[in-house]
Each structure stands twice: as C-alpha cells, then as structure tokens.
C-alpha cells in the first residue's frame, strides 16, 4: 500500500475526492468521526449526499455526487465481508439512492488504501477510474464506450491484468436509462436506484482497482477466535448444502406455492409453469459451476449458460430469485433458458434485472390491453413469454427509439406518458419497480414497499412469513416489525457485509456487533446500532421531502392495483388488500416512527436522533411534522418474536 494515510479499526485510511470535470484528484485522511457517527457505507453516503448536493441538483448534472464506500467490515476476516456501496441522488426516485454489490471490488478498494471515493462533475470524454494501490488516475475509456458490461470487463482485464477488479456500465447506463446498474465480476450488480445511469451521466464507463495492501483491526486475536467459531458452526448448518447448490433460485417454487410470485406484471400471484423456471430446473439445465464472493463459502452465485434455438449460447451469473421472478413468471417465461437469456441480456446492456423485468412486464401488459400496439413497436409484438419480443423491446429502450424513450425512465414515467389508466398497474413506489413478491395478500410486504426509503425494494424489509404467521387478512402489528427490519437490515449495507450469509445461517445480531467491535474502535451494542440506523433512515426521509417538496404520505402509496384488484387466480384467488388497510398501515407506520400523519418526521424524533439541522430545514419549507399528541415512541421498531431477519 502506497498511501500516506494509515488506517486502523477496519478503515484503509484514505478518502479520494475526484472532480471529473477538471480531472483533479485529492487524497484526504478518512474522517474517522464521520465513519463512527454514520457507520460507513450507506450511512456515510446518506450524510454526504444530504450535506453536499444542492436540493435542486439534477441527478444527471455535475452537482450530483457519485460515491463508493466500502465501510468498515469489507475486506476483513469476517464471513462475506465483500460488499461495496454506491450512492448518489437517484435518477429513478429523485431521492437518496444507494445500492451495493458483492464480488471483490469492495475489498480491493480497501486493500488499495481507500475507504471512500467521492466523485463530482462530468468528465469531458468517456473515462475510467484507475486505482493501482497509491496510483489514482482518470484514463480514457473511449475504446470501451459502447461495449456491453459483460464484454467490457474481460476487455479491461486483458488490457490491465487479471488481478484488477473491474466494475462497468453498459449501453443502458451510457444512454441514461434510469434503472441502469453497475456490473462487476461478470454478474454481480449494484442494481437498484439507477447508479449505473449516474455513472453514465458522468461519462464514467468503469472502475478498475488493484489493491495489494492489508487492513488493521482493533483486536485481531479476539476477532479471529470469534469468527473462527462462527465458521465452524455455520459449516454444519443444514441450510448450507441447499444454499450452495441452488443459491436463492430455489425460492421461485416456494413463492409460487404460497401465491406471492408476481406473474404477468403482478396481475396474479400464481404461475402455472413455475416449476420450469425454479432452482432445480436451473441446476439441471443451465448450471456450469458455483461462484462465491470474497470471503464467502456459501457460494450462492450460479455461473450458467442459456441455450435457445436460433440464438448464440450465452454465459452469465444467475438468475437468482429476483431475476427468476421478475424476468421469469412476471414476463410469462415458461422455460429456464429463457430466463437465463433475459438475465444475460439485461446484464450485458447494463439494466437492473429487477426494474428491467418490471418495465418490460409493464410494457407487455400495455400491449395486452391495447395501450401500445405493433405500430409503437416497430412492427413487433410484445407478448407474454416471448424472448424475441422482450429482447426487441429492451433494445428500443436502451437506444431510446420510439416508445422506448417513454420506458427509459421506468414504469412510473412511462405510465405518465401513456396514461389511459396505465398508472394503476405501473408496479412501483416512488418510481422504483417492485421486487419479486406480490404484497396484495402479504400486507407487511406491501407496507415494506410503500415505505422503503429508496422506492419499492425488498431488501430493507421482507415480511412474507410473518404475514403468513400473523394472518394475511390483518394488518395488525406490521408497522413495528417493518420498522425493525428497516433498521437492522440496512446495517449490513453500512458495514458492507453480506446480509444473506448472516440471515440464513442463524447468526445473531449480537454476534455481528461483537465482530464489529473487534474490527473497529466503536464499542457499541445492538441498541446503538439500531438507533444509528433509525437516524440514517430519518435523514434519508428528510432529504426525500426536501427534494420533492410535498408531504411524505403523498409518495408512500402503491399503484391502485394494490387495493382495487383482488388476486384473480391460484391459491389466493379472491384475496387482496382494501384501501382502508393501505391507509391504516400508513397511519400505524407513521405513529410508530414518530412522524405525523402526513408522513413527515416530527422535530421531537429528529431531535432524539440528533438531526436538529434536518428539522430546521424541513421547517423552512413547511414540511416539519406536527408534534405527536402522545409524544414519540422511545424505541421505533420491534423485533418479531420469532426469528425474522
């Protein structure tokens, strides 16, 4: 490591600030106080975006920042300490956006000596960020511009060396498609909130990192003892073998059996051909080998191939569950090779398979209902289950041809252009497309989508089994459970470790925090961790309100299908949410958060979280929540009595 700022406590030591417009690159010692108070990763991204990006800044403009943060645990001796977070004002939601990926990029950044990279401006020509330990340069990427993500990575490795870790965007990001992703390690994505589109707007095609240093932790002996015990225990865990064999792909069948599997743009929740796109079909027909991130022996990644008549065989990582659902049943695909092919297609053009699946499904339903026709589609159809139709439509979107321009902004913007009632089935919240679970008969899950800080996304809270256990006809008790999850799950995105490893193998939050205390100098407990996560959540909410200038409740509704359409078929036929339940869940949620009934944080709760500056800012624009008649809850969120992590 050739950096002048020595790190410790899990930190590499150096922060980079890069002005892409001028090419200026500055190195600073990483702000340890900022890291401690905001927990690194997502938390630090939230604070920097709040402090530094003007409220009226265009997400595609030079004032927006593009931030990489590898947190305090990534790269350390900790299971799956492999994550890196990306953040910017999201072009999809116009609020705080963050997304993270596994693979090897996060550890590489830390090993090169950097905790944070904060980029502003717009490069004058296609550029890539080159980091080789102490050497940091902006290099010409003209020869890579236009390449697909899966083509660009090997091209750069050939030019730079196999030991560089590469993250790229594809043509979707270059062309400002608002749900573009960042791809690394041939199939790991930071998929959500359009971080790839922000890279594209900055003419930043790729990031290449080689790091050869190491990290210092607070107490290596205790960390080694603690983590070794966890490793020994989890090796014998009964979940390990199925996880290693199928990854998350096996979950398609379960979602279908329990009728929460989005099918044909969330029209129904049961897919008659689910078995053909489930994990066992993937392993039998498409699997080449298993794949793991840095420091992980769970190897949930599946390296596969797709063989379809008349098409070149393609190679990819995936599909994991979300892609299986959203590019599978949600598009009416009836064979696993079709799903793999669409997964490859979207990965290569650099489009989030979750939002991408949602956008194509929305287009297919518009076509089904005659809202768009072959005249809009260059003579093509857009039928359920047709890979050819989906591929052509994706190409129209990526290159913004004709009606593809409408869909380049995601389902919400497309529905605003198409109109004629299509808003009802644009399956998004705050502009971001829903994940692979239908919440109409899983009310907690619907609430999780409605209130997710980055638009509809499952990774902040997932409640399906709790909904099943507590009763799918009732909304009682969901708000506090969702809030607890919204606090504990994003901690992994702060510390930059994989949540799957911990969540699926019975590792308790106390054990994670113990490991954190051996890595860092923080000496915290779970309660403090949760409160800091609450603070981050509220700051992100304040930023959303400040940028979008309306009561928070305005933005928290799902599309009308959520309460107007009962589920038409399958085991949950006739079931669904009512409008009163949607409203009731929001009322409960806001009260449990210490927000007023407009969904605006109150001064009391912001003061409790040491966010008085944000309260002042909300007050100036008339969006500070009114005081709650009975005061704020002392603790926001409650852990579900049965383990639901």
């Amino acid at each position: 490591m050739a950096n002048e700022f020595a790190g410790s406590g899990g930190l590499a030591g150096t922060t980079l600030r890069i002005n892409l417009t001028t090419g200026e690159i500055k190195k600073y010692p990483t702000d340890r106080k900022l890291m401690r108070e905001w927990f690194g990763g997502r938390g630090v991204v939230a604070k920097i975006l709040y402090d530094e990006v003007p409220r009226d800044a265009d997400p595609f403009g030079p004032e927006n920042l593009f931030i990489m943060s590898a947190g305090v645990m990534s790269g350390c001796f900790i299971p799956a300490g492999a994550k890196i977070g990306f953040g910017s004002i999201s072009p999809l939601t116009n609020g705080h956006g963050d997304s993270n990926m596994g693979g090897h990029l996060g550890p590489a950044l830390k090993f090169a000596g950097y905790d944070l990279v904060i980029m502003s401006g717009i490069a004058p020509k296609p550029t890539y960020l080159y980091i080789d330990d102490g050497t940091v340069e902006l290099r010409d990427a003209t020869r890579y511009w236009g390449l697909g993500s899966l083509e660009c990575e090997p091209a750069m490795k050939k030019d730079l060396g196999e030991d560089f870790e590469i993250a790229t965007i594809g043509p979707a990001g270059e062309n400002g498609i608002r749900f573009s992703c960042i791809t690394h390690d041939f199939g790991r994505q930071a998929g959500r909130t359009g971080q790839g589109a922000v890279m594209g707007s900055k003419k930043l095609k790729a990031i290449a990192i080689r790091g050869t240093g190491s990290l210092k932790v607070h107490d290596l002996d205790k960390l080694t003892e603690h983590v070794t015990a966890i490793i020994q225990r989890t090796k014998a865990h009964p979940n390990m073998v199925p996880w290693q064999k199928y990854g998350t792909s096996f979950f398609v069948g379960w979602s279908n059996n329990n009728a929460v599997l989005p099918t044909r743009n969330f029209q129904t929740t049961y897919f008659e051909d689910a078995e053909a796109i489930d994990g066992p079909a993937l392993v039998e027909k498409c699997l080449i080998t298993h794949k793991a991130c840095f420091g992980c022996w769970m190897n949930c990644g599946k390296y596969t191939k797709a063989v379809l008549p008349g098409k070149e065989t393609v190679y990819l990582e995936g599909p994991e569950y979300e892609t299986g659902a959203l590019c599978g049943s949600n598009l009416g695909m009836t064979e696993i090779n079709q799903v793999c092919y669409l997964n490859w297609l979207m990965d290569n053009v650099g489009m989030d398979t979750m939002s991408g699946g949602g956008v194509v499904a929305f287009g297919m339903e518009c076509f089904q209902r005659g809202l768009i026709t072959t005249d809009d589609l260059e003579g093509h159809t857009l039928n359920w289950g047709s890979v050819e139709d989906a591929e052509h439509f994706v190409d129209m979107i990526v290159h913004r041809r004709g009606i593809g321009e409408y869909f380049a902004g995601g389902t919400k913007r497309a529905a605003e252009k198409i109109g004629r009632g299509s808003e009802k089935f644009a399956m998004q919240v705050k502009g971001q497309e829903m994940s692979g679970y239908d919440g109409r008969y899983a009310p907690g899950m619907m609430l999780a989508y409605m209130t997710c800080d980055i638009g509809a996304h499952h990774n902040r809270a997932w409640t399906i089994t709790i909904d099943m256990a507590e009763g799918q006809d009732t909304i009682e008790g969901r708000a506090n459970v969702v809030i607890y999850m919204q606090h504990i799950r994003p901690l992994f995105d702060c510390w930059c470790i994989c949540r799957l490893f911990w969540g699926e193998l019975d590792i308790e939050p106390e054990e994670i925090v113990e490991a954190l205390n051996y890595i860092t100098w923080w000496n915290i407990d779970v309660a403090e961790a949760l409160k800091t996560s609450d603070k981050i959540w509220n700051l992100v909410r304040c930023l959303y309100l400040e940028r979008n200038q309306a009561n928070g409740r305005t933005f928290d509704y799902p599309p009308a299908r959520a309460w107007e359409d009962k589920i038409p078929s399958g085991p949950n036929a006739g079931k669904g949410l009512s409008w009163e339940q949607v409203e009731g869940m929001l009322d409960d949620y806001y009260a449990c958060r210490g927000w007023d009934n407009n969904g605006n944080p109150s001064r009391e709760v912001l003061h409790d979280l040491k966010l008085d500056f944000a309260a002042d800012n909300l007050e100036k624009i008339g969006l500070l929540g009114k005081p709650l008649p009975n005061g704020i809850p002392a603790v926001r969120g409650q852990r579900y009595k049965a383990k639901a992590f």
Partner: protein
Amino acid sequence: MVVFLKAGGQLREKLKPDVDHYTRKVKIDGEKTVAEILKDISLDPAYVALIHVDGKVKDLSYKPSDGQTITLQPPVSGG
C-alpha cells in the same frame, strides 16, 4: 421407525430441535410421507421451501426410510 428432521433459519424454532441445535428426532408408526410427518409435529409445510434428502430434492410425498435425515430449507428471508 425413526427419522431425523433438520432445519435452520426461520424454520428452526418451529421445528423445536431436540437432538442438537438443528435436529429433531421423530418416531413414526410405519411408512409416512414427509407431509404426514410434518402434520404429526404440527409444522406447517407452507414454511418449508425445499426438502433435501441425501443431497437430492424431494417433495412432500416422499416417504423416508428408517434413520434417514430430512433437511427442511426455510424460505429466503429476502435477498
């Protein structure tokens, strides 16, 4: 005869292990399907995402033999 049910994650508490941290020993009279065994111990199969026996996927109609271990995989708790 006796079969062993094994589960972790969200399923572990519902299984109530008694052999080790993850395993419950269940005595059954004669040949029974996994669905029938789960019903006997009041474990709702809706919470089981995958059934694994000797590294192979089985369904609820599978009839385990004496001494076999059946691994019950819970749902992914959201990726």
